[in-house]
């Protein structure tokens, strides 16, 4: 064995550095059939298990490898923003929220996935296609910057047993918007009189965090006739008296409901999971929350799932018209700079085959509906009356009147919603004592300033 000299140490060190540097491209080349995938963690373990099965099926069918991470949606959002900012990106990412894809497509940070969507285009719902055709500010065009994989509507979730405990019947629930909501006020009073000191009529989220407060605001505005607040041309209609009136009415109604003590006070600080938790702990009789996450979290409690909980569709508007359900679409994107685009696309083409996607979403217990109405019609599982929760949600998301989340129309509303501009308005009313019309004006002013930054060329 030779002796260790200064030269040998230095030579050895240099050799190691060189081997490391040269080894990196080799490893990348060796993994040419491996794609990195980031996916959102489910609300129930079955969702993650279904994704793992999807990956295993793909790997078996293709011979490719998927190096995947399942991450809760809030950290995933941060991870995704960091990735597209630094340029160190995975090959496939699931949207962590409804704003990310719209904002990053605008910044030309996503790949056009039209060729992937094209393989199943005829199967998709109109809302699914519309929601993924996002605007790129560099090309000034809309393309499929995301692949639709999951869709959801927002039903009401109700504790039927609490209604009965309060001395009412679920069949008494009225079917027009304001009356529907007011129905829960005497229920709250009766329950509180019976010792349920901290049980409230509703679990509406009136915070400035996450998706739920946006959901809630949009539903109220739609119920009061303001669903034209943003239109397909990507324009904000703040000057439209009908829209303005609907926004003021929505802010007034929610703020009053809160101030009158019919929403848990902590709701001003809730995040997306908190209303679910509040509902599960019977802090509220009724909740308004997207997808079936609320019900599925209690699927193992047969009494609660099969008997006590109700999934209620939207009531009619106050003048008796059917209200459209705002239907969100989640899916996957491929960021620019991804190393293994072909494997990423191949995986997505595999995943959106109707039978594969159907099996994946059914494996997740149907928390999300399949964005392909024909598949839901062909498979009786989706509309099985034995599971009234799933049937109601599927009906709302796929077969009733629907409108998309406005992020489909303009990335500006993605920023408005990410900033929670209209949710700050109800904070201004509740905490700042501002009049609802002034709060609405302030919010519209901010929204207009944001929309001015996102001009969309009309084609």
């Amino acid at each position, binding site marked *: 064995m030779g002796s260790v000299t*200064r030269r040998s140490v230095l030579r050895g060190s240099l050799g190691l550095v060189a081997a490391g540097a040269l080894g990196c491209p080799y490893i990348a080349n060796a993994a040419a059939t491996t794609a990195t995938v980031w996916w959102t963690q489910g609300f129930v373990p079955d969702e993650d298990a279904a994704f793992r099965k999807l990956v295993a099926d793909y790997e078996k069918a293709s011979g490719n490898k998927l190096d995947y991470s399942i991450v809760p949606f809030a950290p995933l959002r941060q991870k995704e923003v960091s990735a597209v900012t630094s340029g160190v990106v995975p090959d496939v990412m699931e949207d962590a929220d409804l704003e990310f894809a719209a904002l990053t497509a605008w910044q030309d940070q996503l790949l056009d996935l039209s060729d992937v969507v094209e393989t199943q285009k005829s199967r998709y719902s109109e809302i699914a296609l519309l929601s993924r055709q996002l605007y790129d500010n560099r090309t000034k065009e809309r393309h499929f910057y995301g692949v639709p994989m999951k869709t959801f509507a927002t039903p009401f979730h109700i504790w039927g047993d609490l209604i009965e405990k309060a001395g009412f019947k679920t069949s008494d629930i009225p079917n027009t918007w304001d009356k529907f909501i007011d129905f829960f006020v005497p229920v709250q009073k009766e329950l509180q009189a019976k010792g349920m000191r901290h049980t409230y009529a509703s679990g509406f989220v009136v915070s*400035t*965090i996450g998706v739920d407060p946006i959901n809630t605001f949009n539903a109220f505005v739609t119920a009061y006739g303001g669903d034209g607040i943003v239109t397909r041309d990507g324009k904000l209609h703040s000057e439209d008296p009908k829209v303005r009136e609907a926004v003021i009415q929505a802010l007034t109604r929610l703020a009053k409901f809160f101030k009158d003590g019919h929403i*848990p006070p902590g709701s001003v600080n809730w995040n997306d999971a908190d209303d679910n938790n509040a509902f599960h702990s019977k802090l509220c009789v009724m909740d308004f929350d997207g997808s079936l996450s609320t019900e599925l979290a209690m699927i193992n409690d047969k009494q609660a799932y099969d008997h006590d909980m109700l999934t209620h569709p939207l009531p009619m508007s106050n003048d008796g018209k059917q209200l459209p359900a705002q239907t969100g679409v989640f899916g996957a994107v491929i960021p620019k700079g991804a190393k293994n685009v072909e494997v990423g696309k191949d995986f997505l083409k595999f995943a959106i085959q109707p039978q594969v996607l159907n099996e994946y979403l059914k494996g997740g217990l149907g928390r999300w509906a399949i964005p392909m109405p024909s598949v839901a019609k062909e498979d009786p599982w989706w509309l099985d009356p034995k599971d009234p929760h799933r049937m109601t949600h599927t009906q709302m998301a796929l077969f009733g009147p629907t409108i998309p989340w406005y992020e489909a129309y303009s990335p500006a509303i993605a920023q408005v919603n990410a900033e*929670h501009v209209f949710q*700050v308005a109800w904070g201004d009313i509740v*905490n700042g004592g501002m009049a609802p019309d002034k709060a609405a004006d302030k919010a519209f002013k901010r929204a207009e*300033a944001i929309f001015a930054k996102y001009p969309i060329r009309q084609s």
Partner: protein
Amino acid sequence: MDASQVLDGNRSLARRARSRMFRGSLQGSEYTWALAFVIPYIAIFLIFVIYPVVYGLWLGSDPASYVELFDDPIYQTTIINTALYLAIGVNVKMFLALLLSGFFMRRGWWVKALLMIYVLPWAVPQLPVFISIHWMLNGDYGLLNNLLFELFGIEGPSWLDSHWLALGSVILAYIWKWMPFWTVILLAGRMAIPQEIHEAAKIDGATGIRSFVHVSFPLLANLYLVCTLLSTIFTVGDFNTATFVSGGGPAFSTFTLATLGIRDAFDLAQPRVGVAAVMTALPLVVPLVIILMRKLRTAEVQL
């Protein structure tokens, strides 16, 4: 000796001087070894210190980001909150720490036992502590309001649901968490004061408050100032307290610059604006660092 030889001689001298400058007193292979050992540290310093700082400065160098930031209606509230958070949080914490360090100078086993209990909030990891405080302050089912109701029949307020109560809760949580640490630092400072000085002052009639005012505090003043400056610099970047105690709510009304920066960077997917938000603290932080550096260079012996 001709002119060219003189020139060559000068060049050679200059080379040797340059070489001495880099090599110092190191000879031959010592210099190579020294280089071999120092290069990894320089590389780590460049990668993990210089690069992030330069990248951050680059991200925050776009003037448009500042326009965007100043247009944000919550920016002004955030600045006011940050100023209040620093002014009240840091100063109350440091002043109480100064007083308590005097208490912990007392002799007795129970004082030492109490000190061990007292430092626990600092020793426990931040996140579980702040999340626990968040739940304790919940208006509906929090420990505090339940106690108020059970013991006195009082319905407590919703601590985190109004601006001032929530901001007050954040500041209190911050003081509670960090006061023990600074108490221990100031306690160490007090212990370094020679006992003879106190005894001499005692002979001159300075006891109790007078001893504190005329002996302890003047000797601790420099340490107190340095600690306050350091604490202010640390606290400007404090993200955890506001995020986990109040969540920045209600309606962003308890945001500080650090939480605004994270929100802009990740929730709005605008990292440049997020960095710009944090950069706007520089007019405060840079002078503080300069004063701190000057204080640390103070030549005279002072605690």
